[in-house]
């Protein structure tokens, strides 16, 4: 599988280069605000199996912190929070969904990184995170050095994958699906699982016998909505909207509605960003 993904990356890079230089980019201009209004609905990519950010509830409805923002964006832009078409996304295809014009906005716990910023435009953040490692209480991981010579589970294409790939002496076990990775941790296929602090905190809160020994690896990073590279019109609109929503403490409302049941009594300001002010 590792080779396969390398291959995907190479093919994508080759075609991406060819695409950038010779083809007309057909995705252009399908996601201008006028085009969205004419279409009548916003196309937003969200996760479907990543509670509490984006998941599908018992009734088959999209829910979560990201979805809460997505619905409000639709209400602000089109006057109706139901005028929205959700596209299911995976960590590995968020950039492609924007580049190919399949969606207008990605609201999928998307951490801002320099690499990603080359290919998509991030708006101001609505959330923040670092990397955390969740481990079994029998074999606790309390600092990065504890991982030397051991197996660490990561999800391919995530910030944690990139970060730990640069550290020597840690054996990375990579999974494509979040649910598979957590199952692997339960099955003892690694001593720990590295992912965004928020996600591992929530998971440890729900799973007895596991806890987050270290939660501030790397820099504290902003998580922001992303639009197609060059779509400054939509990005600016999102920034203005976030600032406006900050005046009514919208992120705190979203926290209470979606995150609180998962994190329990933590300080909202530790993870949410109000009004786009990081």
């Amino acid at each position, binding site marked *: 599988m590792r080779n*396969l993904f390398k*291959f*995907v990356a190479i*093919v*994508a890079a080759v*075609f991406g280069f060819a*695409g950038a230089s010779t*083809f*007309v*980019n*057909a*995705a252009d201009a399908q996601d201008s605000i006028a085009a969205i209004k004419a279409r009548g609905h916003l196309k937003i990519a969200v996760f*479907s*199996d*990543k*509670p509490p950010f984006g*998941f*599908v*509830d*018992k*009734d*088959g409805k999209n829910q979560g912190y990201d979805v809460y923002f997505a619905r409000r964006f639709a209400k602000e832009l089109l006057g109706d929070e139901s005028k929205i078409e959700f*596209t*299911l*996304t*995976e960590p*590995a*295809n968020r950039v*492609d*969904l924007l*580049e*190919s*014009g*399949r969606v207008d906005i990605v609201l999928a716990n998307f951490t801002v990184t320099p690499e990603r910023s080359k290919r998509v435009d991030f708006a101001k953040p609505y959330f923040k995170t670092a990397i955390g490692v969740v481990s079994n209480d029998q074999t606790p991981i309390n600092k990065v050095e504890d991982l030397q010579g051991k197996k660490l589970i990561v999800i391919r294409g995530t910030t944690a994958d990139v970060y730990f790939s640069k550290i020597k002496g840690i054996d990375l076990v990579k999974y494509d*699906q*979040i*649910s*598979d990775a*957590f*199952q692997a941790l*339960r099955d003892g296929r690694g001593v720990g699982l590295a992912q965004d602090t928020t996600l591992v905190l929530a*998971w440890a809160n*729900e*799973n007895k016998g596991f806890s987050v020994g270290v939660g501030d690896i790397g820099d504290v990073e902003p998580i922001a909505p992303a639009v197609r590279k060059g779509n400054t019109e939509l990005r600016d609109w999102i920034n203005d909207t976030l600032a406006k929503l900050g005046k009514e403490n919208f992120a705190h409302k979203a926290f209470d509605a979606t995150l609180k049941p998962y994190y329990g009594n933590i300080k909202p300001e530790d993870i949410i960003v109000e009004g786009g002010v990081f």
Partner: protein
Amino acid sequence: MPFSGADILLDSANLARLAEGLIVTVRVAAVSIVFAFVLGMLIGVIALSRGKLVQIPYQIFLQSIRIVPQLVWLFLFFFGFAKWLGWNWNGETTGIVVFSIWGTAEMADIVRASIGSLPVHQTQSAAALGLSRSQIYLFVLIPQAVRRLLPVSINLATRIIKTTPLLVLITVVEVLKVGQQLIEVNILTNSLAAFWVYGLIFVIYFLICFPVALLSRKLEARWSVQ
């Protein structure tokens, strides 16, 4: 508590969603298999010709499909075509197109090999009896070849079915993804959700693939030379 957590499978809403996912899986696989078998037969027979005009395009088609992983083709058709050509096929259509092309290539080679492996004297004897070229194929070669290609083509059909979970990367929610959604949303209350949901999906895949295998065994027995 050997059955704790099994109630996740008794919830009618959960089962309905799994069924929806299953319909997507079966629809993509079934349509692709039909296209693959029909087009594969046609191209396979054409590929028996030794002419360069046939062999060069055929080999390029076959090898490029075979060498490149299905996931790459899915990405290329779904994201690439949308980006460069503005073809916004939905994920399911893209999946059917890619799996049909892949299946066609594999099937064509199976057909070509099956017919090609028949002894030359079959063709020669049929010709000596005065059968025309199309009659030789229709009445002599293809009936014998079908017996040879049956086990391999059934294997191809089950491979197509088992490749459908890749579709999740082009935003298609098939049965396995629904399963993962159920597991994640129930994790708070049900730590064995993964076991039960994956267990059910295992049974579902078995129920799809086993009848196909059974049918092939029946047909093989029926058509075997007494």
